[in-house]
């Protein structure tokens, strides 16, 4: 294999995954949270594609393509929810969504 070794890809993906996970946990705007979820999914995609090259079969790349489609669907639903909340003038802040607790 030309280019950097597999370890580097995994390290980049792990950093991406951690960035996304921190974003989901720390940021308050649901839009940024959705974005962070995307970053997490793409960390998985990068790993899949890198390992697919290493393993010499295409399973991982096909998986990554399918994940992209699914991620788009998930974001569409998330944005729809955010629009519905904005229409009802609910605060777009994850920390303030606390009517349900106990």
């Amino acid at each position: 294999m030309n280019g950097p070794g597999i370890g580097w890809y995994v390290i980049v993906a792990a950093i991406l995954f951690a960035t996304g996970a921190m974003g989901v946990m720390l940021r308050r705007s649901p839009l940024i949270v959705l974005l962070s979820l995307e970053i997490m999914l793409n960390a998985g995609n990068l790993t899949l594609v890198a390992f697919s090259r290493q393993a010499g079969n295409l399973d991982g790349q096909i998986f990554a393509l399918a994940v992209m489609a699914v991620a788009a669907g998930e974001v569409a639903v998330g944005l729809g929810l955010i629009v519905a909340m904005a229409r009802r003038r609910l605060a777009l802040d994850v920390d303030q969504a606390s009517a349900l607790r106990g």
Partner: protein
Amino acid sequence: MIDTPSVDWLALSPTLALLGASAVALLVAVLLPAWMRKGVAAGATFLGFALAAVLAGVVYEDTPRPEALLANSMYRDRLAALAAVVLAVIGAVVVLVSWAERRRDNHGEYYALLAAAGAGMVFFVGAGNLMTLFLGLEWFSISLYVLVALDTDRATSLEAGLKYLIVGGFGSAVLLFGSALVYGATGELGFSQIAAAEAGQDAFLVAGLAMILAGLAFKVSAAPFHMWTPDVYQGAPTSVTAFMSAATKTAALVLTLRLLVTAFPEESEIWTVAVAVIASVSMVWGNLAALAQRDVKRLLAYSSIAQAGFMLIGVAAYSERGGEALLYYLVVYSAMSVGAFAVVAVRERELAKPVTLEGLAGLGWERPLYGLALWVFMLGFAGFPLTGGIFAKLFVFSAAYDSGDWWLVLLGVAATAVSLAYYLNVVRWLYMRTAAGTPLVAVGGSPPHDPAVGVAVAACAVVTVGSFFVVQPILDLASEAVDSLPF
């Protein structure tokens, strides 16, 4: 010339029947006049679920030994077929529960999403590689995110939907990354190929296994991955909660069993311990937190976390008996859970506000049959005789004991004892006289008589009690289903 793969349409037929029902319900929302929409959409969805149950039954009869389909991406076996029957019956009962739900004019969308979620689950339980696992999981999860948030005029429904989306998406991403690591370690995606592969980088494999397990535990709503459950169960429309609590758990637990046993037999020493720990944390935390709840849907949510813990004991046992115990437990649990939420839905429609324990007061006198049914479900959850709940618990405990996990048995018995407090508390509130002069009539008057939900509750009660008397037939079915796994 490229060979076109031959597709086993019969094995896919339950999924396709539900997808068809979903398409019909969605078209109904656009093409038919408003007054016909509810009836046609609900009818089509009910027929879809019924057809899926029958077709899955045919697949069960017709598949004496497991087969791998479509480049090993799907399994056609009795485990998937039995789980599909259970899921389809849950779906059909939930259609009955949903019938009288007050909603804006979005019946078509509601039933379309319900059928789509059911189709995703039926697909999911037959998954044979990590890709179909992820796709099936997202398929039903995305449908459920929308279903939870469907009452857009209630702020709590939207809040629950957003929370479920964020936490569910997080769980899926963890599962995906874990799948990628397992793929990296073995170069394979198929479950049986992963088991056969020489694990190259062991650290990747174990880390991936841990992340996949965590991702599935989010869906099973086992502690410590349960934090979304109470909020979402409370905020979602009650009929959706009924569906989620029974069907999502069934699908996720069956797949957890299949994945761990098929793909990771070499690592069984690791995952049996991990699953046992998750099970014990769920039992302890679910039962203790349920003691403090006033809202009945929230209480049942914590109860479902605890029940997930009991069911995971069957997985942790890593034996055929454990698998049988899990399947038996799932049948009984699904009936009790759908039934209990259905009674809550009835009460909620009557009071036109969320049901607290105080809101249940007097239900046993005002509506004796619903009260009796809820009583049966609570006793079943607690594991009393004359309901299948007792055998469900006994079977998982004996499976755990056979595998040497005696400490899980002790913890389970202790957790059951604690759970008596809140289950019996619900029964106590049912027969509490309401404070003098407090009218319990709904703001908008009593809702119209609704035989559909009555039929649903009766069916759930029959299964709950019936499973006590016909243990052996259910166990035989479960044992043939578990035979398709390589123990």
